[in-house]
């Protein structure tokens, strides 16, 4: 029993989000492949089966009293012994399971029906019903529910069924909230919009699209609620508030407590049954959640820069003074469910000269971002650098399990991310996020660092740097945020900047300004820069040289002007051809339309 019987941990939004994308068939498969999930399902199935079949498989009449064998230990006739009235414990355990589960099922049904219907209506339509149900939900959640259960019991009597139904009502907010937030989230999904545009009625949309998404989370929540229902039952019965005439596991447990020192085993069996059932429900919920979040069943490898082979690295590491960054034969892989690594970039090799801006260009999946993260040593957990070398200023960054690399981060090598809004910590002021690295790397005092940060902000073109220092990320615009991130990147005077699609999330007019800013910073500080982008316009605007990636491999590299004007590799040519630059406008190219226009 959870200590706080009527509380349930809200499911993470990740689950809701995940449940949308999880196709049901593969979900079931994933669930069954998880040994925990499989065990839980088998156990639950077994418990339910045994309970349902109780009347037929129980060796004795569960209510047959034989005082002569009271408290008898397990024997050939009574496998689990006899209770205080000489009734067969095994038979009572089976029958008790039937009643316990039935009680829990009643609570669960009420909770799901009430929570689901109100959650669907409130979430989909909003309006007064939403306000009202939200209000009553917070009311129910604010009341110590155990008290309500006790009071209800006084009024309606100690019926297990009514108690469980009321319990269902009291716990329905947890389903309601889940459904409501799921529905609200789905309601904003484009496929629901598409369905509405297709002319589907609300009922159909709810049935087809919305219910599906909340289904799995509801099952998880239901598993938790089922466990709580059983725990609540036994808790009330322990308090002597149960229905003696309905021999649930809790009643058996309560009887066992009364005879604790005469026959300690009497609390073991129902206790074990309760613990096993709740435990399997929790396990089942956990496994389903894991399956939804699609966590690999195999243990994750501790990721990072565990380079497996350094042979190529030392061989080809260049000592050229003019080269700021040299990437040699870099190969990175991710673990898969089978033991093999899935390679995402393979033998990537390029140099960045001092003061040069190198563009890493490619379509999605080309490995350009993975390459950038490798240079930074910020590959996601699990990623493995299989081979290759990254040499910065003559130093092999991967030599000592990445320690050198981490030491240079922020100070010598800096990062400008793609999405400005999600790359600032929403919980700290802009100022704090700028000042902390400067104090650490440059050893500045608080005031000094603040001054410098304010100056930097002014320098990157922020109109009111003092105010911006005090602002939280959500209080500034995306363009401003990107300027702040750039200011952060250059704050500790790095010599190499890795910028991952720094303008992709911005409007074109803002993009142009940010590109200007990067250009001027580069010029004034003599920075070297790796610029990841998919946009040839950005390359043309900023880059000195270009590396074109496809499927994790370099297809072509060279000076920007040459490569853009005379691409050698067919893939590069195709890509450049796909840009719409220089094509005729449709109003001209569409002959029929042009005629029509002319006719007007």
């Amino acid at each position, binding site marked *: 029993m959870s200590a706080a019987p009527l509380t349930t941990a809200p499911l993470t939004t990740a689950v809701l989000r995940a449940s*949308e*994308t*999880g*196709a*049901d068939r593969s979900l079931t498969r994933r669930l069954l492949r998880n040994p925990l999930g499989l065990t839980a399902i088998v156990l639950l199935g077994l418990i339910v089966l045994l309970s349902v079949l109780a009347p037929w498989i129980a060796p004795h009449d569960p209510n047959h009293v034989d005082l002569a064998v009271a408290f008898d230990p397990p024997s050939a006739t009574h496998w689990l012994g006899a209770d205080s009235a000489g009734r067969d414990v095994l038979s009572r355990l089976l029958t008790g399971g039937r009643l316990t589960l039935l009680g829990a099922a009643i609570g669960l049904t009420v909770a799901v029906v009430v929570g689901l219907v109100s959650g669907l209506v409130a979430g989909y339509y909003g309006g007064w019903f939403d306000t009202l149900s939200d209000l009553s939900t917070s009311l129910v959640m604010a009341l110590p529910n155990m008290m309500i259960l006790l009071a209800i019991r006084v009024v309606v009597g100690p019926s297990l069924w009514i108690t469980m139904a009321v319990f269902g009502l009291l716990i329905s907010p947890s389903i309601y909230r889940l459904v409501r937030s799921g529905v609200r989230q789905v309601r904003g*999904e*484009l*496929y629901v*919009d*598409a*369905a*509405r*545009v*297709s*002319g*589907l*009625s*609300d009922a*159909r949309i709810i049935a*087809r*699209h919305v219910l*599906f998404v909340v289904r799995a989370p509801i099952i998880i929540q239901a598993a938790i609620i089922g466990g709580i229902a059983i725990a609540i039952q036994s808790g009330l019965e322990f308090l002597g508030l149960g229905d003696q005439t309905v021999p649930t596991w809790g009643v058996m447990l309560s009887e066992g407590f009364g005879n604790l020192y005469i026959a300690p085993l009497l609390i073991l069996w129902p206790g074990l049954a309760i613990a096993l059932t709740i435990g399997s429900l929790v396990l089942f919920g956990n496994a389903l959640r894991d399956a939804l979040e699609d966590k690999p069943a195999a243990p994750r490898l501790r990721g990072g820069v565990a380079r497996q082979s350094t042979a190529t690295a030392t061989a080809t590491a260049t000592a050229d003074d003019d080269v700021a960054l040299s990437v040699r034969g870099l190969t990175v892989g991710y673990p898969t469910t089978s033991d093999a690594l899935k390679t995402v970039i393979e033998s990537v090799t390029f140099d960045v000269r001092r003061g040069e801006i190198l563009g890493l260009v490619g*379509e*999605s999946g080309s490995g350009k971002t993975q390459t950038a993260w490798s240079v930074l040593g910020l590959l996601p957990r699990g990623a493995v650098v299989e081979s290759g070398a990254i040499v910065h200023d003559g130093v092999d960054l991967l030599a000592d399990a990445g320690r050198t690399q981490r030491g240079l981060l922020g100070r010598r090598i800096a990062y400008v991310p793609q999405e400005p809004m999600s790359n600032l910590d929403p919980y700290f002021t802009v100022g704090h996020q700028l000042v902390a690295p400067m104090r650490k790397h440059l050893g500045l005092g608080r005031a000094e660092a603040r001054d410098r940060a304010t100056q930097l902000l002014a320098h990157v073109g922020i109109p009111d740097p003092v105010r911006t220092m005090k602002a939280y990320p959500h209080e500034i615009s*995306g363009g401003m945020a990107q300027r702040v991130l750039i200011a952060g990147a250059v704050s500790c005077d790095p010599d190499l900047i890795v910028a991952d699609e720094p303008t992709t999330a911005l*409007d*074109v*007019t803002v*993009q*142009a300004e940010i*590109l*200007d800013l990067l250009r001027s910073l580069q010029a004034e500080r003599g920075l070297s820069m790796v610029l990841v982008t*998919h*946009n*040839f*316009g*950005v390359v*043309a*605007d900023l880059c000195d040289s270009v590396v074109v990636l496809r499927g994790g491999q370099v297809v072509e590299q060279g000076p*920007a*002007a040459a490569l*853009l*004007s005379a691409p050698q590799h067919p893939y590069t040519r*195709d*890509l*450049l051809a*796909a*840009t*719409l*630059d*220089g*094509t005729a*406008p*449709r*109003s*001209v190219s*569409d002959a029929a*339309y042009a005629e029509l*226009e002319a006719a*007007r």
Partner: protein
Amino acid sequence: MTDTLPSVENSHTVENLLTVENLVVEFPGRRRRAPFRALKGVSLDIAPGETLGLVGESGSGKTTLGRAILGLAPVTSGSITFEGRPLVGLGRAQRRAAGRDVQAVFQDPYTSLNPAMSIEDILTEPLTVQGVAGRDARARVRELLDAVGLPADAGARRPNEFSGGQRQRVAIARALALRPRLIVCDEPVSALDLSTQARVLDLFIDIQRRTGVAYLFVSHDLMVVRHISHRIAVLYRGEIVELGSGEQVTDAPEHPYTQRLLAASPVSDPHEQRLRREQRWAQAARAS
């Protein structure tokens, strides 16, 4: 203000498919704050078989306009008429019936298809609403898949088995299922890779040629809009600042904002890009 726009008069010579007049859309403000006015009196029209490009930056209201036409955003005032019938102020069911000739293709091909449904289910969904089912529906699905260049066996698979470009083709097929007269395309290629984007744009053009459907094509990318639109409207902070032929708007923009937009769009030729940059700086210098 619509009267000042050069092309409005022209379009009256043809029977309009869709007419939007003085459309205002407001979203209620949070916590007693004043409502946010996303569209401040927008007027435009679309002729049958025509593509009207709608270009603007984030917050310009371009997506809101598309959603208002689809009945997905609340209309505060103004009118939307489709083939002479009003689309505003109807009940839910009436709106559904009136709007069946206006379909949509959305931006994100990853979220605009229900991941749990097979492609066939996704494509039959609009058909069943119209009472087409069984063999007819399956035949229509094959037809649609063919029209968007997907293999016939795609129907049995699920969206996550397809690439972004292929998913967008499915979305287009779904929009075509009901043989609409107008498709609102909300940034349909901006999430796609460069090469895919070009192919999908060509598909749009191809379909328009074959079926005569009209598009309201919403995008932030002037080049994309120029490539597909007969006429282009430039939206800025909830108002249309310029509306003209694709050629006029993208080659000789009149409004300073459009000029700024054009100068800011980078091109892949380094030389030409340097010229644009300088042009932009000159504009900025003039402005300040």
